[in-house]
């Protein structure tokens, strides 16, 4: 017989940690001690990072704003670190979050998704969808333990050469002390 229940959730202990590998109907809670916490969790100490190590950062740049902004930085000879690799997309709305996860999976130390400022999209509305999607995406990535400093979304217009310079310089300077990113969920674990 189905009876009405107290609406408050029951508090019977349930496994906090996934991964009892046997299909046990009432898996035991894995204690925190069993979690394999990677050693280089916080900002890696200076000795861990080779002195000449430079992060590798993938930039998804919309061709009407940020790519043009990066070109303008070039025309103005604004110097910035050699850490960025720009991948041109027609609109920031083309940047599928799957590409970003793939980049972290492969081992990029940081990812920047950049497009026109909301309201200025060459395609009228593309970046509004980007904004919604990446507001969620940034939260999700942080939730699964990715250091939020490695993943940035930013509006850089075609006239903002200096902003492009500033953003990629900042991003490089922020990531450098974090050390190399361990590829997402590669055997060594997620890196912060």
């Amino acid at each position, binding site marked *: 017989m189905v009876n009405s229940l107290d609406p408050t959730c029951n508090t019977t202990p349930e496994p906090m940690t996934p991964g009892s590998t046997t299909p046990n109907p009432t898996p035991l809670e894995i204690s925190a001690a069993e979690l394999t916490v990677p050693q280089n969790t916080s900002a890696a100490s200076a000795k861990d990072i080779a002195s000449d190590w*430079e992060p*590798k950062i*993938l930039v998804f740049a919309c*061709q009407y704003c940020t*790519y*043009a902004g*990066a*070109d303008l*930085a*070039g*025309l103005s*000879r*604004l*110097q*910035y670190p*050699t850490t*960025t*690799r*720009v*991948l*041109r*997309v*027609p*609109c920031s*709305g*083309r*940047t*599928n*979050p799957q*590409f970003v996860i*793939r*980049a972290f999976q*492969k*081992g*990029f130390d940081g990812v920047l998704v950049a497009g026109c400022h909301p309201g200025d999209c*060459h*395609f*009228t*509305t*593309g970046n509004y*969808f980007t904004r919604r*999607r990446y507001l969620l995406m940034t939260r999700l990535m942080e939730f699964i333990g990715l250091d939020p400093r490695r993943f940035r979304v930013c509006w850089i217009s075609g006239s903002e050469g200096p902003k492009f*310079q500033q953003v990629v310089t900042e991003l490089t300077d922020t990531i450098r002390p974090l050390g190399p990113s361990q590829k997402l969920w590669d055997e060594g674990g997620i890196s912060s």
Partner: protein
Amino acid sequence: MKKVGVFVCHCGTNISQTVHCEKLAEAAKTLPGVAFSTEYKYMCSDPGQTMIKEAIAEHGLDRVVVAACSPRMHETTFRKCIDSGGLNPYMLEIANIREQCSWVHSDKDKATAKAGDLVNMAVAKVLKNEQLPSSFIPVHKRALVIGGGIAGIQAALDIADTGYHVDLVEREPSIGGKMAQIDKTFPTMDCSACILTPKMVDASQHPNITIIPYSEVEKVDGYVGNFDVTIRRKASYVDSVKCTGCGLCSEKCPSKKIPSEFECNLGTRPAIYSPFPQAIPNKPVIDRENCRYFKTGKCKICARVCTADAVNFEDQDEMVQIRYGAIVVATGYTLYDHSQYGEYGYGHYKDVISGLEFERLVNASGPTMGKIKRPSDNTEPKNVVFIKCVGSRDKARGHDYCSRACCMYTAKHATMVRDKIKDSQAIIFYMDIRTPGKNYEEFYLRGVEEYGVTYVRGRVSRIYEEGEGENRKLIVQGEDTLLGKQVFVDADMVVLATAMEPQPDAAGFARKIGISYDQNNFFSEAHPKLRPVETLSAGIYLAGACQGPKDIPDTVAQAGAAAAKVVALLSKDEMETEPIVAKVDTDRCSGCGFCIPICPYKAISFTDLTERVHGSVAWGPTGKEVKRQVANVNNGLCQGCGACTVNCRAGALDLLGFTNEQILAEVDSLW
């Protein structure tokens, strides 16, 4: 076997001073798929391009990477180059090693390493490139001009003269627009009607122009070359074919005291009316709101006196759909509602009027037969004060922008006051005097020097009334910023130079036809300098003040430019479309329709797909034909932004030229 050729450009020393171009070209040889690699001083030069073409032939290359300047600079150049070398122009990728590498870095080794990565990415991508066919869409050789002011008339005439048919849609009963209301035009002081009405007649008699008066555009479907436009012909209650335009109905109409829109409410008109005597078409319409028959059910005098039996009280709005190849939007402007400036007493003081009202007062065919009389008591004003920038250049209450024409028409008005009323004074309050046009400065100086117009620099803070009856006058209180003191000026009449602003329904109209508009609701041009008459929607062009405040010469020039663009489009039997468009894999499409709302161009819609079902299914026989809905991209409308591809979870939508595979290959290429 895919064969990539990599061509590294030195760009003189622009690239080679920071990037080891020889090493780069050498390293590229080791990349998978690369069959040939070389470097040259100027890849974009004639010998450079010849080198690419020769390499294609000699090494059997089927795709090309050029490591050089930004693709925004020379992508088209190199596409043409490999096209003439026998490859599909889209078998090209550019590695941007100048703007995004050599110019922004100084460490030569690091810059070379980065350039190597950029070449790597480009090679990985180009290996996934596919030949993209240019597709062609037919062009329907008929143009639509929306708005029958001087911009629309000029554009229509210019298009029609080249032999293409033009429909000119006007929402008022007559074409002519604001220019028909104006008395004289600066700086030549031509009579406005004398230069406009011949053009109106030309338009009405032109074999290639159809004027569709008293009608509005309801809907625009389709795309460049093939717009399907729905036009609402508003019920005019007068059969324009039968009507001879004799005017007897207007003469006999008993409701005569209706404020005339054309006369800025300074004159009156009957309920069955033509806006002005030179109207084209000169066929009256019935103003339903004010018609005695529609209000009381009795009258029909107009029908009785009409010898042509043209009056039809049963007339209904009618929708017509016509296909056009190109559209010119020339919907014009309206004037800022200066009742916002309560301290100027507009509406409260009858003798505070707008510039356009002044045009009617001074017009020989206007309500005062061209005698300047102040509205309150029909006496001749002796002291006339003009206030400029009412609603323009005023962030707080009006618009940020300058309305451009006001300085000149105020100079014109003041000159006319001094000319027509010999013992008068014309005083202009101004912020700046802007006369950037041919003979404009001279015109303004003539007003000051020959006609004795007085300019006072400063804003007016208040207008108030003093005295009674004959002695009643307005006091204009303002600051003379050059003298640095308050001034009080007696005025018999005050004329406000109100801002030009977009039509009240401009934003809604823009959305309806699919063009963008700026923060002020003026329609946006595709590029402020280089594409001033195009919109971002291919095949739709702008003319006149709907794009921004303009005077008549600029409007006419822009109308001509828009007409030239239309003619260039219509002169082609079919037009080539950009092949970088979204493409649907119907096998993968489940018809969820998530791509439809995300497309800003309404390029995606459902289509029915009939297919045969095989294999075991839960219910029903196998091997039977089923119909299902899938997404379909209209290549004419798609602009290639790729937003839809991300909203397609199954990846059934992909963007040619930037496919999922290509982008993943680029991401993977560096690891």
